[in-house]
C-alpha cells in the first residue's frame, strides 16, 4: 500500500483528485454482478488528442445489470476550440444550446467524483480515456487509474474463431447496435452512445458467459 502512494507524483494535487485516488484503496469484487461499471462515451471536436477537445461526457452507472437513470452523468463543456465539421455529426453547437455548459476542470471534477474506482466500459475505450487523460494533463493532473473494458474488443471474443470467416479489425458501435437490435435513437450524443454501449456490453457478457464461468479478471483479460 505504501508503495502504491510512492509511485504517485508528489505534486500538490487538489483534494478532489486525492478523493478519487483514495477510492482505489478498495479492491474490486471478483463477482461480475457486484462490480460497479461506468459506461462512458465522450463526444469530441475531432480525433486529434492534442488539438481536439471534449464537447460532452456521458456516463452511466451499471451494477448487477441495473442502470439507474438518476445516477447518470451528462456534461457539456464550454468550448474555446471548435471544429465546425464534427459538430455536424453530433449536433452540439459551440457552448451548447439550451443546456448548461461547464468548464473543462469542472467537468473533470464531476467526472472523477462520479467514476470513482469503477471499471470503465466504452466502445474503443482507448480513445475516450486518452481524451480525458489529455484534459487531465492540461490541468497538471495524473492519468486515470481505472481498469477498462472495450466493447469492440469484447464483441470480437463472442465471434467464432475459425478460418472460415474473417473477423473485421474493428466493429463500430453501429455494427453492434445492428447485431443486437438496439435502437439507434440518440446516436452521437455522449449519453445515447453510452446507453447503446451499456446494452451491447450486457448482451456480449451473456454470450461470453455461455462459453464458461466469468470472473472480473477473466473479463478484463478478454476486453482490456
Amino acid at each position, binding site marked *: 500500500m505504501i508503495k502504491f502512494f510512492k509511485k504517485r507524483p508528489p505534486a500538490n494535487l487538489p483534494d478532489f483528485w486525492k478523493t478519487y485516488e483514495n477510492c482505489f484503496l478498495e479492491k474490486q469484487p471478483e463477482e461480475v454482478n457486484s462490480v460497479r461499471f461506468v459506461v462512458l462515451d465522450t463526444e469530441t471536436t475531432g480525433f486529434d488528442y492534442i488539438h481536439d477537445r471534449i464537447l460532452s461526457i456521458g456516463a452511466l452507472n451499471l451494477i448487477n*445489470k441495473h*442502470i439507474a437513470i438518476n445516477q447518470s452523468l451528462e456534461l457539456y463543456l464550454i468550448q474555446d476550440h471548435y471544429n465546425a465539421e464534427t459538430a455536424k455529426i453530433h449536433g452540439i453547437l459551440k457552448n451548447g444550446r439550451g443546456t448548461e455548459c461547464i468548464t473543462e476542470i469542472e467537468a473533470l471534477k464531476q467526472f472523477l467524483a462520479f467514476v470513482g474506482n469503477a471499471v470503465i466500459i466504452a466502445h474503443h475505450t482507448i480513445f475516450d480515456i486518452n481524451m480525458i487523460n489529455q484534459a487531465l494533463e492540461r490541468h497538471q493532473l495524473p492519468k486515470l487509474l481505472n481498469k477498462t473494458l472495450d466493447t469492440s474488443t469484447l464483441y470480437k471474443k463472442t*465471434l467464432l474463431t*475459425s478460418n472460415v470467416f474473417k473477423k473485421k479489425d474493428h466493429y463500430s458501435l453501429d455494427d453492434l447496435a445492428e447485431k443486437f437490435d438496439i435502437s439507434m435513437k440518440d446516436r452521437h450524443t455522449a449519453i445515447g452512445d453510452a446507453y447503446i454501449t451499456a*446494452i451491447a456490453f450486457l448482451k456480449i457478457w451473456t454470450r461470453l458467459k455461455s462459453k464458461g464461468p466469468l470472473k472480473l479478471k477473466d473479463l478484463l483479460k478478454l476486453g482490456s
Partner: protein
Amino acid sequence: MMKNTISERVADFLEHFPPFNELAQDQLATLSKEITIIYKEKDNVIFSENDPPHTSFYVVHKGAVALKRGEKMDILDMCDEGDIFGLRPLIALENYKMTAQAHEETILYAIPIHIFKPYARENKEVGNFLIESFASNTRNPYSKSHRGKLYEEIPNLGPITPEAQLFDLQPVKYSKKLISCSATTSAKEIAEKMTEKKVGAMLVVENKLPIGIITDKDLRNNIVTGKYPITTEASKIMVSPVITYAKSMTITQAQIAMMKSSISHLCITKDGTPNSKAIGILSKHDLMVAIGNNPAVLIKAIQRAKKVKNIRNIRKSITHLLGAYLGQNIPLTLTSKIISELNDACIKRVIQMALDKMPEKPPVAFAWLSLGSQGRNEQLLQTDQDNALVFQNVPEEKMEETTAYFLELSKIINKGLFEIGYEYCPAEMMASNPNWCLSLDQWKKAITQWVTNPGADEILLSSIFFDYNLTYGDITLVNQLSDYIFEITQKYPIFFLHLASGALQNPSPTGFFRQLLVEQDGEHKDFFDLKRRALMPLTDAARVLILSHSVKSINNTPGRYEKLAELEPNNEEIFMACSFATKALLKFRTKQGLLHNDSGRYIAIDKLTKEDKVKLKRTFKTIKEIQELLTVRFKISNILR
C-alpha cells in the same frame, strides 16, 4: 435543469402505453428520471411467487416476460413491449402471486412505486385505469381483452388449462385498413378494388357509418349469375344492416357472433353500434389465423402479410401448431414437412418484401439458398439463419455493381429474417457476407477449392453448404451448381474420404459403461449435447453417402437414408434404422425445445423419464453401426481420424 437524454428516451417510449399516456408531460418527465433500466438474460427470474413486493413495478421495454404460477409453472400470460406487470402487489401490499421470468433476452424499466402512486391518486384517468384493470381482472382473471396490463391478479377459479383458455379470451386482431366504397359505387369497381387490395369483403359507408357489406359471395350470387349487370350500384347488392361489434371483442365472442348470424365478416365500429364510425373489418379468415390451427390459413396469411412484423406473429402460431402436432403424435415426416413449408413461405415472403424495397429489379437471375438444417427441412424450431445467394454470371465489368446489388438485397433479407425470429449466424454464414453472395462461377471456384484441398475448414464449409435448398429464385442456377458438385467430387474421390472422416469426428454419445456422456464444462455442463453427439453423426453420414451416389435434391436426412436403402438393398436394414433413429431424435429434440423454449440441443439427463432414456440409447447402437459402415467403405484409417 440538468439535461437527461436517457430519461427523455424512456419517456418517449412510455407515452405510447396506458396508463402513462394519461400522465402530464412534466409528470412523465419526473417519473422517467427515476426509472432503472434492467437487463435480464433469457430465463432469469424477475420475482418469484410468494416473494415480498419489490419497491418498483415493471414495464417491458424489449423482449418478453412470462408470468407463471403453481408448481408446474403454467404460463398464465406473456407480457410484450409496453406491458406492465408486478404492480398490484405493490398497491395491495401483498406478496407476488406469480413468478415473472424472462422468456427471451429482455430489457425492463423498473418504476418506483412511491413516485408513481401519487400520480395515480391525483390523476383521475390513471386512477380509473387501475381500478378498471383490477376490477375486470377479478371478473375475468385471465382475460387478455382487459389487458390493462396489470397482472398479478388473484384468480379464485379452480385449475385452468392455461394456454388454451387464455387464447380464447384474447382480443381479436381485425384488419384496420378499411376497404370501403359508397352506396353508388359500381359492382365492377368494387370487384377491382377487392382484387387489388386482396380482400374478401368491402364495406359500404355513408358519412363514415357502415350501411352495408359486400363479400365475394354477394358478387358471385348477384353479378356472376347474371342476376344484375356489372354496373349495378353497391346499394342494390349489399347485405344490410351490417353486424357491428366493438373492438374489445374476444376471439370466442367473434366466433359465436359469426356462427349465430352465419356471416363471414363482422364490422368493428368505434362504440360497437352501427351508429358510430367504422374502424375495421373482421373476417372469418382473420379469426382462423388467430386460432391458428390450419396450415392453409397460415400460408394465406403469410402471403397476405404486408409487414415483417405480421410474419413474426404468424411464426408464433406456427410454433403453436407444431406443439399441437407433436402432442397428437402426428408422424414426424408429415409434421416437419408442413412446418418446413410454413417456414419456407415466411422466408419467401420476407424475400419478396426485400425485393419490393430495392429501388430496382435484380439485374440478373439469382437464387436464395437455405443451408444447414433449414436446407435439410429439419428445422422445426427457430434457430440461427444460414443462407447463401447465387447469381447468374455477368461480364467482368458488371461484376462490381451486380455484387453490390445482391449484397444490399441480402442485407435487407437477413435483417427481415432476424426480425421474424431467426438469429444472425454467429459465423456470418449469411448471404450478406460477401463470401456467401457469389456468382455461379465464383461458387464453382469456391467449391473446387473445398473439394481439392479438403482441410478441416473446407470440410466444415462443405458440410454446411452442400445441404442447400432453393428457397427463392431460379432453379436452373441451383441445378447447375448441384451438377458441378457431383462432377467435381467424382473427379476427386479423396474428398469423400475426408468428408467421411469428418463425419466420424463427433464425440461418442456413451461412455465405457454405456452411460450417457454429458458435457464437462461451459454453460451446458452436465447436459447431454443431443445435436453433436447424436444428430450430427447421422446427418453427416447421410450427406457423404448420398453425395457419393450423386443423388440430387434429397436434402432431408431421413429421406436420404430411405433413398440409400433403395439404392443398396443389401444395407436396407441399417439405412432404415438410421432413418428411424434420425426421426426419433429430431422429434425428441423438438419436444425438448418446445418444453424449454430453446433450441432443444442440450438435454438434462436427470429430468428424462426412464422410457425416454431407453429410446435415446436405442438410437446410439444405430449411430455406431453407420459409423462402422463409413469407416469400412471409405477405408478410413486411424491416422486420419
